[in-house]
């Protein structure tokens, strides 16, 4: 009953005309930007953050959530139509989605992706509403030591997000932690890493960092790859799935949703792992696995459902524990902080209309997304044909103005340019910027709680292992680390053997 009462409260917030409009606008703009090749959800959310600065907090979060799943859907559309994944989570969708598009079934693939995402979104939203409050209750019992261990677990989990070397991903987290220390130390008032620049005394703002690392670096990479030319897209014959398609896609959607939601709750699991796992599960279950890669509709429905389920399940640790499980949730936490909201277990009790309003808006947003996208698929296809040379200056201008208006200082634009270059260099060196972002957001929390836990224990570092909750969290983190290192070790050894 409580659940229904809460959801009703949320619906009353999110169905207010203002918030409905924001949700709609967010989903629309998110799709619009997310459809552009090379711009994944993280980059899109980072670039559109400034749009929400001047809104009331609830409205801003509703709009950001709308932008997030809008961009996710937009990314799937790009993956299906031009075989270019915006983010690693839509890589799998490329395989069968684009194969379907080449057979002239792009419309069916896009509709399947939209409907599978809708189903997964609704199921997962209910899951968030059910699982959020008890988790927040657990989190209230957390002391500083538990928080440190939880954050370590989250950061280690984030390493799975980065494809590639585990050590490099850890180094990126460390770099993020290092960047988070720039500015005045809250405890002592000492300034650190400021290079004597007064503009840095308040620390590095999170918007220029996110926009530079994701927005600018993505633009540079896209320009390098396309030179500013347009792309050819597959033609669209019909939109609606046939009865046969529905029969095949339906069970795959359900399995994908379950898979995605389970993996999404795990720190660092996220959408990528979910979509890959769902795809391989479908391939294993299929009676004729050789159809996969040739345009099997299950190969679109399952990863898309998993993708959406996982990316919404990520909200659970973010909202209830205040710990972002991936870079996008780190962006959301940054946005909340800008609005003066501290994410964490207390949010549910202190600001129920914000918490439940946001959750209910996810329900509505998912419906809006389908209503919005089915008729507009043709428009997205046309947008994809606009040469990038016309699009990227607009995106650049938007990034610059957004960063500038943070506190009307050109310094933030300079920082953004600097981080753009850094992001590009890191990409070239095969270092993923997503863990960096996570480290940056968690840095201050981690340092504060680490100091506090040590203070409380009288300088005894074993406190992290001996307190039961903290110890088990650390054990899980260690296990994760071990599991991730092992296949790499094996593969590396295999490679070495092959070379000889």
């Amino acid at each position, binding site marked *: 009953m409580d659940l229904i009462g809460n959801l009703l409260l949320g619906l009353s917030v999110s169905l207010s005309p203002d918030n409905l409009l924001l949700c709609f606008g967010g989903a629309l703009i998110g799709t619009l930007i997310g459809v552009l090749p090379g711009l994944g959800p993280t980059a899109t959310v980072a670039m559109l953050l400034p749009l929400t600065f001047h809104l009331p907090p609830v409205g801003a979060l509703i709009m950001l959530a709308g932008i997030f799943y809008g961009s996710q859907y937009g990314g799937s559309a790009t993956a299906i139509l031009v075989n270019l994944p915006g983010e690693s989570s839509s*890589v799998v969708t490329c395989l069968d989605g684009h194969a379907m598009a080449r057979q002239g079934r792009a419309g069916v693939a896009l509709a399947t992706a939209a409907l599978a995402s809708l189903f997964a979104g609704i199921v997962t939203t209910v899951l968030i509403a059910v699982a959020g409050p008890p988790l927040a209750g657990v989190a209230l019992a957390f002391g500083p030591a538990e928080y440190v261990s939880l954050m370590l677990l989250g950061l280690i989990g984030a390493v799975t997000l980065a494809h*590639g070397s585990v050590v490099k991903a850890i180094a990126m987290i460390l770099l993020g932690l290092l960047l988070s220390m720039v500015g005045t130390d809250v405890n002592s008032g000492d300034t650190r890493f400021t290079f004597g620049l007064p503009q840095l005394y308040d620390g590095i703002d999170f918007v220029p960092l996110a926009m530079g690392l994701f927005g600018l670096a993505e633009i540079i990479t896209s*320009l390098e790859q396309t030179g500013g030319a347009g792309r050819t897209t597959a033609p669209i014959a019909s939109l609606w799935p046939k009865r046969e398609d529905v029969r095949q896609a339906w069970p795959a959607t359900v399995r994908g949703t379950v898979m995605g939601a389970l993996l999404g709750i795990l720190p660092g699991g996220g959408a990528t792992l979910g979509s890959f796992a769902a795809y391989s599960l479908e391939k294993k279950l299929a009676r004729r696995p050789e159809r996969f890669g040739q345009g099997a509709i299950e190969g679109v429905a399952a990863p898309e459902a998993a993708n959406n389920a996982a990316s919404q399940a990520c909200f659970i640790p973010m909202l209830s524990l205040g710990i972002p499980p991936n870079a996008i949730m780190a962006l959301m936490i940054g946005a909340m902080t800008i609005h003066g909201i501290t994410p964490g277990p207390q949010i549910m009790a202190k600001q129920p209309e914000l918490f439940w309003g946001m959750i209910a808006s996810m329900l509505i947003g998912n419906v809006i997304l389908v209503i919005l996208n089915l008729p507009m698929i043709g428009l997205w296809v046309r947008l994809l044909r606009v040469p990038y040379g016309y699009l990227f*200056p607009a995106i*650049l201008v938007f990034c610059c103005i957004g960063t500038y208006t943070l506190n009307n200082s050109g310094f933030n634009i300079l920082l953004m340019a600097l981080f753009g270059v850094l992001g590009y260099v890191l990409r070239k060196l*095969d270092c993923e910027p997503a863990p960096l972002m996570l480290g940056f957001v968690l840095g201050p929390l981690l340092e504060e709680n680490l100091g506090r836990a040590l203070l409380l224990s009288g300088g005894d570092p074993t406190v992290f292992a001996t307190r039961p909750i903290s110890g088990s969290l650390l054990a899980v983190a260690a296990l994760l680390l071990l599991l991730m290192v092992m296949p790499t070790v094996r593969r590396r050894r295999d490679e070495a053997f092959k070379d000889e």
Partner: protein
Amino acid sequence: MPSLPLSNLRPSSSVAAPPRDSSPAPCDTARSAPRNAAGGERTPLRFPVPAPQDLGAGLLIAAFGLAALWMGRDWPTGTLAYVQSGFFPRMIGLLMVLAGAVVTGRSLLTHGAGLPAWGWRPLLGVTAAVLAFAGTVEALGLVPAVLILVGLGNLAGQPLRPVPLALLGGALAAGCVALFVWGLGLPLRVWPLWVSP
């Protein structure tokens, strides 16, 4: 990446186009055709180490760590029971040096990807455009800053012809003024001082 010239030079080890890299082949096919159009790229450099890309990454990581340690060399670390502002930077700096050393060491022992070609033109073009915007938006106002950004940014990709470029700049400047100044009411200067104080 199979489409890079590197693979032709080193048939044996180039199979190791990063096997863990899940960004799929389509990017490569899309990249290869207009590669020359973007211009400004060179053949990747070759170093006599098995994994030049990892070497670069490792050195960069270690450099960040060393810089942090050096900058924080005089900061008080306190004791474990009462850590002070120098403790966390030193810990993270040490860990970074360690991580950098591991990546560097591994790059000398196992085969890995080569250094990719650098897209100097988009990198410099985009960065210059953004820096120019930063330098002009306060002094000259939004409209000139947007026009300068569009003009410089145009050099980052395949340049547009003058007329479409002018139209794009004009439309963007007008759109930004409409959206940000009139619509959202942000306190941005629109024109230079000498035009409208």
